[in-house]
């Protein structure tokens, strides 16, 4: 998620959509994907999602590929483990290594699912501002003000933490052995000390921020909302489009006899 200290997300069609709606769709499609256990359907959905994300999020191809790395690694692992470990019709065997058809199918399904959820998450994160998400969750998903503003205040503390971390490291390093020239010591004891100091300093700062929020009346009832975040027609159109696309893929897949549910696991 883009932070305010870094660049805000570049303006794009997806970036203009309501964050809560986007998060809802991400969760809904992910849940639907969990129930699909054939390799073809989630692969088609993945390709569609990839095209949609590329088309609606203005992001360099390089960033998109880099963001894929963890998901690709995980998907590969899932595929290999399933292919080798799942019992069934043997496709290929060499000594103790044995690849089964069922294993490849289930592994492929799980791998494709990983990539599908991955690309949706990437699209969400690259197009959503963290603060806008919290505000939208507060307005559209009725997240309580105390939780919302506590998270926003925590977010502000996080913004300052790297600098405090650096300062504390320097402060500890300056008393290290001067004969060890060069950079700050890195041992676990040193690190533990830095973390301890950062923790104490942050807890105290958190207390002061909590007091400041309370002194501004956070927690009073009733309250009003300035500039509520609305769910617009375009948001609803996006919901309809995504749901229709997923339904269509499932329908066609079912008609072609490709679609498999969780039952595939127990065959």
């Amino acid at each position: 998620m883009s932070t305010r200290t870094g660049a805000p997300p570049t303006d794009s069609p997806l970036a203009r959509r309501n964050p809560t709606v986007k998060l809802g769709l991400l969760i809904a499609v992910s849940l639907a994907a969990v129930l699909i256990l054939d390799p073809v359907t989630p692969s088609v959905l993945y390709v569609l999602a990839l095209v949609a994300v590329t088309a609606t999020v203005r992001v360099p191809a390089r960033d998109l590929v880099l963001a894929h790395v963890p998901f690709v690694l995980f998907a590969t692992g899932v595929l290999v483990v399933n292919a080798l470990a799942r019992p069934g019709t043997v496709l290929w065997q060499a000594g103790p290594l044995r690849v089964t058809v069922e294993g490849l199918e289930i592994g492929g399904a799980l791998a494709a699912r990983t990539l599908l959820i991955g690309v949706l998450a990437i699209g969400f994160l690259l197009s959503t501002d963290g603060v806008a998400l919290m505000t939208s969750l507060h307005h559209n998903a009725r997240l309580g003000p105390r939780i919302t503003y506590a998270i926003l205040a925590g977010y502000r503390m996080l913004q300052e933490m790297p600098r405090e971390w650096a300062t504390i490291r320097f402060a500890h390093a300056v008393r290290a052995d001067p004969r060890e020239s060069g950079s700050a010591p890195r041992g676990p004891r040193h690190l533990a000390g830095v973390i301890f100091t950062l923790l104490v300093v942050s807890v105290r700062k958190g207390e002061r921020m909590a007091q400041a929020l309370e002194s501004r009346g956070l927690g009073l009832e009733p309250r009003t909302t300035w500039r509520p975040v609305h769910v617009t027609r375009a948001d609803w159109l996006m919901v309809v489009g995504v749901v229709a696309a997923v339904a269509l893929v499932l329908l066609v897949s079912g008609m072609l006899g490709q679609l498999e549910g969780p039952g595939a696991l127990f065959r």
Partner: protein
Amino acid sequence: MTTRAEQAGAVELTGVSVTFPRRAAPVLRDVSLRLAPGEQVVVLGASGSGKSTVLHTITGVIPHTVHAEVTGQVTVAGTMTQETPVVERSRYLGVVAQDPSSAVCLPDVEQELALPLENHAVDPATIDAKITGVLEVVGAAHLRTRATAALSGGESQRVALAAALVTEPEVLLLDEPTSMLDPDGVAAVRGALTQAVARYRPAVVLVEHRLDEWAGADGTAALPSRAVVLDESGAVLADGPTGVVLRDHARRLHAAGCWLPLDAELRALTGADGGLTNPANVAYLQSLTDTEWVADEPQGEPLLVARGLAVTRDQSPRRRRGDPEPAPLLTGVDLTVRPGEIVAILGANGVGKSTLLLTLAGLLPPWAGTVDGPRPGLVFQNAEHQFVATTVRAEIAHGPLPGRAEEVVTRQLERHRLAHLADQNPFRLSGGEKRRLSLAAMLAHDRPVLLADEPTLGLDRRDAVATAETLRNVADSGGAVVLVSHDVRTVAALADRVVVLGDGYVLADGTPAEVLRDHAVLDRARLRLPALVSWLLTRQPQSLRTVLRRLDDAVRTASSDRNVPTTAGSGAQEQGVLR
């Protein structure tokens, strides 16, 4: 006994005593204070006299958030009592606290200001205009769309002031709102406050120990019209018009280590009013110079040499290809520090003073140029950043100490008046004690050069004087000190040489009297001189340092005179629990 006042005050404390758990003596004793709507009061007292506790008792943080035993009556806006929780009281109160970095809680300035209005259920249609209005009053209209992470300390405090006033509370509570700011920030926040109070007319309770900076050139007249003085035991010593209170108690406040407006400080020393316009005070200042102080030319081999130094904070090795090389903050810094020297570095916020110290300390690699000499020690602006241990004793023992660690620790505990705190947790000490500990722990390492980043920031006068003395001892015993400070008075009293940074390089380098008289340099570096320093520079520049040191000595003498009987009396039972 009178019955309840018909017209309730904005704030009423009646016989309030506050005792923290595990402490025998109360922090506040039988404090009564009635504040009429729109009335302004400044609360004075030494460190630890309970000034902030008064504010916390009004907001309800004590006893609702911070546990303490409270007796007596607290009434806010006529209806709220000590049973009322903090958030309910917030309907009538606005608060500005000390630390700018925790004063602003949300990512955007606009959100920050909308939050209190939303919480108070203000009609959303009016919120926009209210935000515009309050930002104009505090002179921060240009900050409206800024991210709060990008604000300077002075800007943060102005936004915090706006957030406190935007709901137009009956009472505004100010807990040392400028003590962590540079002079630029102090001036901006003070100006904003004057405007805002004139516009919204809340009752004001101000706790501030840098009364000299707060009052500025106007002296006592620039302070709130009423003053309440708390004595060391937390009881009300005086309550009345500020001019009268300061006149009657100047000597005592001076001895207690409070920063006072110049007229009050001189009154404490001479008994004469009117500050520098009174011939008696002028004669006194002239009398401080009768033995001329002669500067020793620093001799000996240099301890630290920087040549053609350029510094940058950005050390990120993971720059992407094609990104431009970050520009250095400062370039062309040549600095030679010899034994016995104290060099002060002055400059506006963000000019690169702290980065320069980190580079001189060998903690950041130079962007260009070289730093030669044995590795210096460094004490940081926030002493807490240095603390690694859970007791004062262990804190000093941290790291490879020269000689036998036990002896070094005992020596440092004695030398820096920390022996009675040896088993305390460093994080629980007072501001002055934390500073002493950070110096004691760093100096235990016997590095020839000590670098110090804002060593007197946030300290009361007595602790600031004590810190300056410690730095001077380092230089007098053959070491050298390089300090960064915004406190021009402390610098003028302490430094042999002043280096002024601005516009990315060194603007001036010379004796304090030379450099501080150069108005072109001061303007470019956005430095302001305290009234006393600029008066001395015009009238008797050659004795600038002598006079300032004598005035510091006067604080030390006055406070030690007073301290002798107290230590023998009630002080003994409080040993070990003093904060």
